[in-house]
């Protein structure tokens, strides 16, 4: 601190007595880069017979000792640490660092070069993990169904309180945001419809567009996507933080079944609340569209309703509603499964929460597309 510290230097000289390596200055972390550069220069030239002189060295810390030990190799570092003419503290430092390098640093491997092979490797790994992920999902679906089957006939094991609490959280609490969202999407669809159909003079069929869109697709899809973001993530975070704090293990050691305790109430709650929310979304969407029809197309409310009643069959409603329980089951299962996959850290909880949302939205849209194909072939 008192005197400015000079970077360490090393001079290699040869005289009658043989080669001599004289070190001086401060060998500390502060000058690490310079020391390392100098050591690299000398690396090839320091033979085994070189006498090493450390007496002119100022300060030395573990970083400096590491550079010296690496330059000299383990044998001469050990020899140097036996040198009685050096201060004991310095010898101890050299010995400790030398030992540390000897004992533990042998296993260090150079990192491999990145390149085409690494790319292929990563693609392979990604495919492998996708396959594993699918298997795990199928396995977890199986476990959940088994849980339902085994508790269905034993009313003692029904967790009514937990289910009701979950229905409140996943269903009731989501009503305002879902109704608002569907209302606005309904209005947007009506605007689009009235503009596009106006050029054919058919803007009256905006009513049918809204009806078809919300009963068949948008009602259930909007609800499922909203719940995938809102509820699947909550399930993962709840179960994941329990997993991280070993609470799941505690449940197991108490002889209880975590699937029965944590998964079934959540999935069951979603199975109840998602169809109900879907219905609300359908109504809100149609109302949103209706408001636009009344305001822009100057339709009367009774005309809007009678058109809707004439053109929409019950089938449209049932076709849309039939998808709700399937989506509910998948969202609940994926949310819970990702929670169980959490390991240890806080980071892991975050990763799996993200993964739960992405996966459940993906699965929802995939199933919706398959359902659309199926309905088309069936002529529903």
């Amino acid at each position: 601190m008192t005197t400015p510290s000079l970077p360490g230097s090393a001079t290699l000289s040869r005289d009658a007595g043989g080669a001599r390596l004289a070190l001086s200055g401060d060998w500390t972390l502060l000058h690490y880069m310079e020391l390392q550069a100098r050591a690299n220069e000398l690396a090839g030239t320091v033979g085994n017979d070189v006498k090493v002189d450390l007496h002119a060295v100022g300060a030395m810390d573990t970083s400096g000792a590491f550079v010296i030990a690496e330059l000299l190799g383990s044998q001469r570092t050990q020899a140097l640490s036996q040198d009685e003419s050096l201060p004991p503290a310095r010898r101890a430092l050299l010995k400790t660092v030398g030992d540390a390098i000897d004992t533990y640093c042998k296993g260090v491997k150079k990192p491999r070069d990145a390149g085409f092979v690494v790319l292929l490797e990563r693609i392979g790994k990604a495919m492998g993990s996708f396959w594993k992920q699918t298997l795990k999902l199928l396995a977890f679906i199986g476990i959940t169904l088994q849980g339902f089957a085994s508790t269905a006939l034993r009313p003692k094991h029904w967790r009514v309180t937990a289910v009701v609490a979950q229905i409140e959280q996943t269903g009731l609490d989501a009503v305002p945001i879902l109704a608002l969202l569907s209302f606005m999407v309904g209005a947007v669809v009506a605007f689009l419809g009235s503009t596009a159909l106006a050029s054919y003079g058919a803007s009256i069929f905006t009513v049918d567009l809204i009806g078809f869109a919300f009963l068949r697709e948008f009602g259930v899809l909007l609800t499922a996507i909203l719940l995938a973001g809102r509820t699947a993530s909550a399930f993962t975070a709840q179960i994941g933080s329990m997993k991280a704090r070993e609470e799941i293990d505690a449940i197991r050691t108490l002889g209880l079944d975590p699937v029965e305790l944590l998964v079934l109430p959540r999935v069951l709650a979603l199975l109840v609340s998602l169809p109900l929310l879907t219905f609300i979304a359908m109504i809100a969407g149609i109302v949103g569209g209706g408001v636009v029809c009344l305001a822009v197309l100057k339709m009367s409310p009774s005309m809007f309703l009678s058109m809707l009643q004439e053109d929409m069959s019950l089938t449209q409603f049932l076709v849309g509603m039939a998808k709700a329980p399937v989506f509910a089951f998948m969202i609940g299962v994926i949310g819970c499964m990702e929670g169980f996959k959490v390991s240890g850290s806080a980071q892991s909880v975050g990763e799996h929460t993200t993964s739960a949302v992405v996966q459940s939205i993906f699965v929802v849209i995939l199933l919706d597309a398959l359902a659309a194909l199926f309905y088309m072939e069936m002529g529903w």
Partner: protein
Amino acid sequence: MNAQTVAAPARETVIEVRGLINRFGTQTVHENLDLDVYRGEIIGIVGGSGTGKSVLLRTIIGLVRPIAGEVRVFGENLLSLSDERRSQVERRFGVLFQSGALFSSLTVAENIALPLIEHAGLPRMDATRLAGVKLALAGLPVDAGRKYPSELSGGMIKRAALARALALDPEILFLDEPTAGLDPISAAAFDSLIVTLRNALGLTVFLVTHDLDTLYSTCDRVAVLSQKRVLAAAPIDEVARTDDPWVQAYFNGPRGRAATFAAHKGKD
């Protein structure tokens, strides 16, 4: 840096606490607490639960702002320094937190390399190599560096956290209950590691502990926190003779007697 001053008097004070008062709400933790720590010693801080051992440590490293009193580390009052100057002083001490406080999103090697990259400005390659040496110094195999903290056992976490505390070659090492939660064998190994490192690196060690074996096997001096102040600060045999009910219960209780016996047997 300190090599030039090695010839200075043996009892250079590196930490100086004067008239420290810490209070949380209405509960006073420290009342006019004085403590000196000298360069190169291992000082153990003991006291019952809730006597403010950890608070004292956190006050010294500047994480807790005291109500009154002065704390000087290397002769500087941390809380009155500019941010930049404070950061410079902070680099001269390393802290091992009770549960390790390793960053869970980084591997062990990255944890240790972080201060080297941020403060010493080393390129990542060199920092990682040096991190390997620090790991080895702390007694961990190099392949532990590629693991994440959640994959390590309790003892390995302590060692990895110690390696990170040693990353910038600090002059003072603060250890908060380093052997808590370790099995007796790992704890003993950790004790001897601390003594070895102190001797090799010339560290000053500030050790908060409950572990009587650690006190006997490592500490040069022991400071007892009781009645909101430092009741005694002296070599352990002297402290054990202090006429205070807590000290007597601590050192002469069944565990205390066993540790004393073991320590004296070890010396014979």
